[in-house]
């Protein structure tokens, strides 16, 4: 008996909660009678009351709930409308149930009968009286039996941990298959190679086209147990199911090419390895995306750039006026425009994985061309970079991969003799570090032959026979124009164009390239790239009347340069930074600035290609995040400058292209 009492009181408590929820749902439903979510909520509340009422022995309550539930079944199926009548009826049913929850109240059979006939009256309206509701919406058509057929498109991406709670996608797929004509395309883009495959991780995505007489709710119900373990998008597609991009035959055979277009999508990490997509940061809604042309994005970024400049002027003005109200508005605008700028730039970020997959194909083709067996491994496909950076990075990466496959990886016999795996490996990895993204191409080939490089360089007249160079310096020679180590010119490489082009392209992206190599073990090319091209984090410095920006990614520290320091170095343009002698370039001299040199100058110490170089300036103004403006056609070829920026006071600062500037100085010397 005791357990029965407990059950009854449990039911009373629970039912009261459901009734309260039902009431607020009904009041909302009155405002939005078409909202399917509200209809479902009301239905579920009634359904639960009915179910648990029957269990707890509240048969009269279960009966009433059942009557009203039947009405909501019809509404859910679109055969009835949630009219004011229905809502009034449901509200009175709710009141009746609530009163019966009180153990003191006698159940009245009269009330039950009245409720029954009221419900029946409404149910009788269902088939014919409301034809405008059951009429097929535009996207539906009728099949020969007169039932409405809708075309449902389902984009379903189970999360990587999908199997971990015992779920199996097959059950759902077969259930969908039973609902009507069902066309399922499996997207294998995230599937890794066999060695990396974790059998307990879900990598697959499914695009399903379903023609069914069932309603969208029924289709959605199929996923009820897994909805928080997957990204799900269900849409009723227009009448004829057109070939949608992801279901086109091409994506079945060549998933690699699917992501190469320059369009962006916020949920577009289609080619990102599934294991990176954690459920917390990718809710189901994020799967929806729109396509926007790249030009629109570019002009948005330009506008935001202008806004940031205007905001800087406003901030300057406001701080000069000492007007508190103006200052607070200026601060608000400053905060908002910074946020807007970050969000806008973020839209342009795309995962580098979209290019990685293209290289799989390249390596595959190269291996058969070269008669070698080479596999490409990738890592960090989810690393995001500005769209423009990724596009302009493609050609340099192709060069590097070709080089690694052709020069780096040895032939199978050589590898066997050296006791290596006859299958060569080229690894591409991408990762974030600070304000930069690093992309590495590693091969496990023979490594660079510094002796051969030296000989070749001397033979080509690029190096003096007596020159003493470290191994690292020798490696860098391969970036010189016209340098080639290939014994024979092949289709793949060996024409001596390539590495210098690679270096220039990377520098044009304000990036740097470095080499490490170990004989017999392999070579690594490491590209350091800025996150975005539109904005530069820079150090603003003053030289004479002019202002210049040094890219912050290169600057290590700033030290003072006094007359004494200059005297000590015997005017050799060297300064002592904590025991290390660092050569410097005096920008005042290089740009022939007018005016007097200050007594104490500042040296901004930078690291370029592994070497420390100082730039002597009159003064360091501070860190400055700035929008890059191109110099225009007239000045775009000026060496040593990569662009300009407008400062808050409306004046102009030139952005220094440090590697190019260094080369000019070296040539002039």
């Amino acid at each position, binding site marked *: 008996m005791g357990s029965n009492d407990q059950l009854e009181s*449990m039911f009373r408590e*629970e039912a009261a*909660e*459901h009734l309260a929820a039902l009431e607020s749902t009904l009041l909302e439903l009155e405002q939005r009678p078409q909202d399917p979510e509200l209809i479902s909520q009301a239905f579920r509340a009634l359904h*639960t009351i009915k*179910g*648990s009422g*029957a*269990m707890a022995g509240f048969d009269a309550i279960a009966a009433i709930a059942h009557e009203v539930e039947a009405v909501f079944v019809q509404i859910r199926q679109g055969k009835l409308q949630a009219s004011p009548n229905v809502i009034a009826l449901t509200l009175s049913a709710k009141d009746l149930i609530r009163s019966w929850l009180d153990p003191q109240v006698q159940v009245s059979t009269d009330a039950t009968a009245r409720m029954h006939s009221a419900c029946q009256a409404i149910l009788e309206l269902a088939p014919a009286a409301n034809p405008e509701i059951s009429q097929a919406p535009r996207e539906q058509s009728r099949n020969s039996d007169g039932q409405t057929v809708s075309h449902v498109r389902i984009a379903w991406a189970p999360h990587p941990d999908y*199997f*971990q*709670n*015992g*779920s*199996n996608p*097959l*059950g*759902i797929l*077969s*259930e969908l298959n039973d609902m009507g004509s069902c066309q399922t395309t499996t997207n294998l883009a995230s599937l890794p190679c066999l060695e990396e495959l974790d059998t*307990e991780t879900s990598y697959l995505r499914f695009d399903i086209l379903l023609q069914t007489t069932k309603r969208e709710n029924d289709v959605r119900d*199929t996923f009820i*147990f897994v909805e*928080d373990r997957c990204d799900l998008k269900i849409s009723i597609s227009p009448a004829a199911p057109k070939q949608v991009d992801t279901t086109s035959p091409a994506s079945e055979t060549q998933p690699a090419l699917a992501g190469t277009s320059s369009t962006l999508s916020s949920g577009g990490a289609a080619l990102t390895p599934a294991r990176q997509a954690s459920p917390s940061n990718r809710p189901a809604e994020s799967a929806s995306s729109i396509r926007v042309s790249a030009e629109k994005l570019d002009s948005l970024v330009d506008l935001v750039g202008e806004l940031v400049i205007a905001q800087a002027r406003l901030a300057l003005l406001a701080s000069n006026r000492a007007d508190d109200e103006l200052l607070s508005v200026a601060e608000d605008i400053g905060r908002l425009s910074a946020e807007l700028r970050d969000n806008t730039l973020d839209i342009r970020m795309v995962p580098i994985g979209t290019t990685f997959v293209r290289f799989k194909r390249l390596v595959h083709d190269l291996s058969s061309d070269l008669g070698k067996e080479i596999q490409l491994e990738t890592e960090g496909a989810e690393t995001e970079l500005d769209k423009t950076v990724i596009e302009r990075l493609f050609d340099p990466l192709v060069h590097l991969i070709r080089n690694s496959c052709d020069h780096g990886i040895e032939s199978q016999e050589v590898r066997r003799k050296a006791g290596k795996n006859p299958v060569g490996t080229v690894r591409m990895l991408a990762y974030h570090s600070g304000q930069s993204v690093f992309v590495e191409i590693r091969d496990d080939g023979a490594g660079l032959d510094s002796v051969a490089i030296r000989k070749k360089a001397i033979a080509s007249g690029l190096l003096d026979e007596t020159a003493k160079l470290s191994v690292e310096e020798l490696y860098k020679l391969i970036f010189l124009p016209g340098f080639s180590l290939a014994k024979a010119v092949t289709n793949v490489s060996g024409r001596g164009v390539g590495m210098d082009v690679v270096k220039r392209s990377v520098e044009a992206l304000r990036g740097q390239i470095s080499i490490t190599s170990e004989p017999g073990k392999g070579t690594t090319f490491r590209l350091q790239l800025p996150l975005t091209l539109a904005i530069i984090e820079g150090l603003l410095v003053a030289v004479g009347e002019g202002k210049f920006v040094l890219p912050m990614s290169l600057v290590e520290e700033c030290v003072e340069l006094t007359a004494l320091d200059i005297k000590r170095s015997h005017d050799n343009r060297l300064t002592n930074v904590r025991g290390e002698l660092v050569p410097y370039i005096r920008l005042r001299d290089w740009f022939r600035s007018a005016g007097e040199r200050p007594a104490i100058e500042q040296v901004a110490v930078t690291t370029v290609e592994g070497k420390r170089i100082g730039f002597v300036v009159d003064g360091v103004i501070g860190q400055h995040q700035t929008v890059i403006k191109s110099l225009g056609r007239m000045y775009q070829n000026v060496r040593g400058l990569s662009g300009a920026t407008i400062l808050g006071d409306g004046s102009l600062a030139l952005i220094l292209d440090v590697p190019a500037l260094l080369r000019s100085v070296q040539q002039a010397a």
Partner: protein
Amino acid sequence: MPKKILVVDDSSVIRQVEETVLVKAGYEVASANGGKEAIRKMETATFNLILTDLNMPDIDGVSLIKQVRASAKHRLTPVVMITTESKDSKKQEGKSAGATAWMVKPFTPEQLLSVVKRIIG
């Protein structure tokens, strides 16, 4: 080979109902009167699906699900929790413990079969 299902419930009525329905549908069914017996049975046999009540006196359903997910043999086995509470909090608790699906009591034989079929075919 018929698929094997373990039904766990402290109420013998519920166990009887589940067993009858599932055996009739062609499944092989074993039953346990609580979490402890369920764990014992899982050590000696391997199941394709586990149906468990949530409120049980010895080991409750949520802890049972957690133990299933931690076991070597059954950690990827689907578990359906059967609950009288339709409260979301309880459902959420079971889900985060690793339940594959859930059903609210009372259910009809058709509902039981459709859930089982959706999960193990």
